[in-house]
């Protein structure tokens, strides 16, 4: 104990009690905060624990050091070393045993008064108490007292006092004759008993560390060093000792005592306490003055002495138990890595556990495993309603499960398969639907609106009346074949040459997208229809009554340039929350050809803005606008922009920024597969996404999904078809026994490596089609093998499979022949399977091959099988 700062001592026997000593001794009990809540006297130490003050003892002023009696009884017996060199036994317990009463109050007085620096109880012979004192030229500085020595020859006065009744403890019983006196003419600053031999005492003397043997006190082993403070033995390595001097810690090996085995990096400020962790090997905690961190040195991996020249590894760590400066700390004697810290001022205490370094790993299925100390923790994501957005890994897994991307006939359904919440995906899927429709213009369509409008020619301009009114508009509208194709792609007009948007408006009404429908009606110069839509919207159950107000405002439209209506609309429209309502007024109040308020309203769907542009922008303006918008979409990785770029190189660029942002290779793969006849599939980036997506499916064990993806890919991109994986050749003629092997390689079938296709009409299935010699026999039924697979349907089409029952399919599979790659024995798949249900070794006599266990991955079950 430093004297000026508080110190903590844990009870050696009560795991929940400790003493804080500064100017007096305070005994605390630590407990869970829940139970202590009722008691107002508890001090919170951490989020879970609180301390209760049990007793206070200020009997012993001028305390310099304290040591807790190591035996169970009497409890809470403490030796206190005082500034005058006296050592007093005192108690904080309520034990009333006779031994306790005898001991408490006993004083051990050195011949010459000087400060007592340190105290140490012998861990085995608990009657021995060593005290280290300051230097006195005529006296010894290490005194070993026997606390039971009342009957020993003492000074007569002291002896008399001892015999006084124990109630009179205050007058004290004084012992003046120590059992041993060692270390003459030198100061002793720290002491500890060696655990390997309880007769050995290690003392930090003035300029050396000395080991005294009580059996022969005249001799000592010593080493000259400055690091003599705070000597302490590692409880797990009895030959390892730590001591310090100012900011430096030295680690000693008593077997190689000549020099320290290690010195730890020097701290700028002097150390005040160094302590080995009692519950964990090789963890040393150090504290410097005026600091709020405890530095930990993890050296468990340096068994001493270092036999060879191996550099010891020390991991330096620091922990910050509390914000205030730390006065002292003490490890809990039994609780793992736990300590209590007391602040330098105010006696604020903190219960603190030093965590081990945690190592962690994510699994492929987004569960996190970490190891802390000797324990493992498995951590899984639990879905919480209304929680933050799910991670893309989870989303992709769910989408893969629901066969997202596989609905090639009704592409728009994929959006629903994806969970139906992402507007970008919705746009993408809806757009794909459009791609299918104009069949004859396929190549053009895939190139995106950007390329379509570029080649615009034969544009006609027309000025039309507002429908339902005979007022002429001064709004020029442009028409061309390309533009109407673009409008179709945007979904405004359906198939056919007519430019009627009515069908589209109806479908929007059905989806209750009133504002959007109204805006589109307005852009088609049908104010009356727009108002009608808004009124309808206001009347529905969940309709917004404000729509009526908007309709009213709309009906007041005037093309008078300086009217109040115009002025108010153009200023108030900015306060409208709905972007479609906003652009309606923007359109009505803008000059012809200057529609920035509509075109750059970023919360309006891209397709609507593009459609609008195609109607109202001139040939000069349109490509510029589209170009600009495309650039924006590419930078933002916004999938709506695919409408503009199509599945071209621009589209890949856009998809690249989408993948960069989201990591959604699933959507990227499916989307790019659509453009398969084109060059895009050959783009290395696209191939990379596809490979990554397949790899993800494999890691998730979605092997069926991966296989389905490969089938789809094989359909759309014939170059990706894998070659047949296995050929079985006839023993006799060496030709492939596959009947039509060369002509018809297996096509992406999950189990194709074990299947042999052929036509039974040519010869018996159990013979080689080349030389008609019989095929090998099944190891179990001893029949010649052969697989009639001609009527086995293709695996790709689910409709064809429907008529086959599960058993039927399995029966076919049972006929296939299979073999072990290791021992090359085999037979009918069904027979082999049933054999290995009960056996581990190969059915062929004298073959000990454990065929079924050879492949660990083969034993894994796909996680997506139904």
């Amino acid at each position: 104990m430093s004297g000026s700062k508080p110190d903590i001592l844990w009870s050696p026997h009560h795991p929940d009690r400790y003493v804080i000593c500064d100017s007096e001794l305070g005994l605390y009990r630590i407990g869970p905060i829940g139970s202590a809540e009722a008691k107002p006297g508890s001090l919170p130490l951490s989020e879970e624990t609180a301390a209760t003050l049990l007793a206070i003892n200020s009997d012993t002023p001028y305390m310099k050091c304290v040591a807790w009696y190591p035996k169970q009884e009497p409890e809470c017996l403490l030796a206190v070393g005082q500034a005058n060199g006296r050592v007093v036994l005192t108690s904080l317990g309520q034990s009333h045993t006779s031994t306790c009463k005898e001991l408490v109050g006993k004083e051990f007085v050195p011949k010459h008064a000087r400060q007592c620096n340190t105290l140490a109880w012998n861990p085995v012979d608990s009657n021995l108490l060593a005290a280290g004192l300051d230097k006195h030229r005529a006296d010894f500085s290490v005194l070993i007292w026997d606390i039971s020595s009342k009957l020993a020859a003492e000074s007569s006065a002291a002896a008399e006092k001892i015999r006084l009744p124990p109630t009179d403890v205050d007058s004290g019983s004084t012992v003046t004759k120590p059992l041993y006196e060692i270390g003459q003419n030198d100061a002793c600053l720290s002491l500890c008993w060696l655990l390997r031999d309880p007769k050995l005492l290690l003392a930090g003397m003035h300029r050396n560390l000395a080991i005294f043997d009580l059996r022969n006190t005249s001799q000592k082993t010593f080493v000259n060093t400055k690091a003599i403070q705070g000597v302490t033995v590692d409880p797990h390595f009895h030959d390892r000792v730590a001591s310090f001097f100012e900011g430096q810690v030295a680690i000693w090996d008593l077997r190689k005592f000549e020099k320290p085995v290690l010195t730890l990096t020097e701290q700028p400020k002097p150390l005040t306490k160094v302590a080995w962790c009692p519950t964990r090997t090789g963890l040393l905690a150090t504290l410097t003055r005026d600091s709020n961190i405890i530095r930990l040195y993890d050296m468990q991996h340096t068994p001493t002495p270092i036999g060879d020249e191996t550099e010891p590894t020390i991991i330096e760590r620091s922990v910050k138990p509390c914000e205030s400066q730390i006065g002292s700390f003490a490890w809990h004697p039994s609780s793992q890595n736990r300590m209590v810290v007391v602040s330098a001022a105010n006696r604020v205490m903190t219960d603190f556990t030093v965590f081990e370094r945690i190592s962690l790993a994510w699994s492929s299925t987004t569960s996190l495993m970490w190891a802390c100390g000797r324990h493992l923790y498995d951590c899984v994501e639990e879905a919480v309603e209304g929680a933050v957005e799910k991670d893309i890994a989870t989303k992709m897994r769910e989408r893969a499960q629901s066969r997202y991307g596989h609905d090639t006939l009704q592409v728009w359904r994929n959006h629903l398969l994806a969970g139906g919440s992402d507007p970008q995906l919705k746009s993408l899927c809806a757009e794909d639907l459009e791609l299918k429709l104009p069949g004859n213009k396929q190549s053009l369509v895939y190139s995106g609106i950007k390329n379509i409008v570029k080649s615009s020619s034969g544009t006609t301009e027309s000025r039309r009346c507002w429908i339902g009114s005979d007022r002429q508009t001064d709004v020029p509208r442009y028409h061309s074949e390309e533009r109407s194709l673009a409008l179709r792609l945007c979904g405004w007009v359906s198939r056919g040459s007519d430019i009627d948007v009515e069908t589209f408006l109806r479908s929007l009404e059905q989806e209750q997208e009133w504002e959007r429908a109204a805006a589109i009606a307005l852009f088609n110069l049908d104010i009356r229809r727009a108002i009608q839509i808004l009124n309808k919207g206001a009347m529905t159950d969940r309709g917004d009554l404000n729509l009526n107000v908007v309709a009213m405002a709309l009906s007041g439209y005037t093309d008078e340039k300086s009217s109040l209506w115009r002025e108010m609309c153009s200023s108030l429209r900015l306060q409208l929350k709905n972007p479609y309502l906003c652009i309606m007024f923007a359109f009505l109040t803008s000059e012809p050809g200057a529609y920035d308020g509509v075109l750059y309203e970023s919360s309006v769907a891209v397709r609507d803005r593009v459609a609008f542009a195609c109607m109202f922008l001139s040939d000069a303006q349109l490509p510029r606008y589209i170009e600009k918008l495309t650039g924006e979409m590419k930078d933002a990785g916004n999938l709506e922009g695919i409408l503009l770029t199509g599945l071209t190189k621009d589209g890949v660029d856009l998809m690249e920024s989408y993948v960069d942002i989201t990591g959604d290779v699933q959507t990227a793969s499916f989307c790019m597969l659509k453009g398969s006849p084109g060059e895009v599939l050959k783009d290395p980036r696209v191939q990379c996404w596809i490979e990554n997506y397949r790899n993800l499916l494999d890691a998730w064990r979605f092997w069926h999904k991966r296989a389905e993806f490969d089938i789809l890919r094989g359909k759309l991109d014939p170059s990706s078809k894998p070659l047949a994986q296995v050929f079985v050749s006839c023993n006799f003629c060496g030709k492939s026994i596959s009947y039509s092997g060369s002509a018809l390689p297996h096509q992406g079938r999950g189990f194709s490596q074990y299947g042999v296709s052929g036509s039974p009409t040519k010869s018996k299935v159990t013979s080689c089609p080349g030389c008609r010699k019989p095929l090998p026999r099944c190891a179990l039924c001893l029949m010649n093998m052969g697989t009639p697979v001609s009527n086995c349907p293709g695996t790709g089409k689910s409709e064809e499979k429907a008529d086959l029952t599960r058993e039927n399919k399995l029966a076919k599979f049972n006929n296939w022949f299979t073999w072990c790659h290791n021992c090359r024995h085999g037979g009918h798949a069904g027979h082999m399977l049933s054999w290995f249900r009960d056996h581990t070794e190969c059915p062929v006599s004298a073959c000990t091959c454990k065929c079924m266990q050879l492949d660990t991955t083969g034993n894994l079950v796909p996680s997506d099988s139904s």
Partner: protein
Amino acid sequence: MFVARSIAADHKDLIHDVSYDFHGRRMATCSSDQSVKVWDKSESGDWHCTASWKTHSGSVWRVTWAHPEFGQVLASCSFDRTAAVWEEIVGESNDKQRGLSHWIKRTTLVDSRTSVTDVKFAPKHMGLMLTTCSADGVVRIYEAPDVMNLSQWSLQHEISCKLSCSCISWNPSSSRAHPSMFAVGSDDSNVAYGGKVQIYEYNENTRKYGKVETLMTVTDAVHDIAFAPNLGRSFHVLAIATKDVRIFKLAPMRKESSSTGPSKFEVQIVAQFDHHNSQVWRVSWNITSTLLASSGDDGCVRLWKANYMDNWKCTGILRGDGSPLSASSGQPISTMVGSSLLSQNALNGMSAGRYFFPPLDAPRAGSRFGHLLPPSSLIEHCDAEPVSQPQQQSLPHRHSSRALLSLAEAEEQ
């Protein structure tokens, strides 16, 4: 939301590393008890230890799985200066049924003269390659030319990094546009030695690995490093565990096809978090590199996630012992300042008796302990905190009655 549950690991000493296999159905742990354990996940989701064996004659720092394409293969590295490759074999009869598996050592790599601090398999498209790094600052790349024979490994490259290495990470990108690349971190704490993360890239022409980048801003000891799964992105992301969590983005600059020199990168720090408020020990990416987990000396595991704007945020904190962290904060609570102090004040006005908190002045004022007592400025400060007052005020009564009774009794005797 993440929920943790504990698994009885039964290691006899600290666990240093946890590693999942490709499918996430198997797991390996290694420990200071010199052993490696292999765990298999049952269909019900529970983990069962199916193998546990002594692997090294020192603490085992790291363990890692090879891609299942190469079989069931593990590599471990240890303080005993070696790395080892292990393969699961089909053991004696019925072992599988008893839920046990057998692992045999295929090779010991003894080239290092110091503790081998990390071991990683290269991405599978490079073949079966193993990398080690050691405390003497050397990265070694081994290759098994015959994937069927795991007992033969040839040392292909030996790269000296000049600084004690603590961790290594391969860039998992399989894109042909990216040459194979790894990053090494050093735990050398000397700031003056400069950047502690070096990035090496394979040069097709020289057939050697050459340094292409040193992250000069990372000058403190680096404890872990992890390339994010690339997943077809056009850039690489690297997470670094040093005194804080850092995420770097390495965007390869487009180079002319003719140039064959080393790639140039635009290095950009995307995020830097000191939430752990202490050393960070490990970082780990999820499979899509959209979630990052980190662990630090505050005893917490933190989860980080980026939004669409590439802003990284902490989305979860879990205590190392699996207990939920109270919502208040991630910081360790700083205990109430001055609680005992106030009780002293309150007591001064009461007949507290000699055994309780002594008065501020009187016999001891002149003693050497006088300066221990808190300065009055602090006391005032505490008085100025009305929120914590009532609780504190109520403290001494209870104390005094308890302590006084018991000790007063003792005195009468």
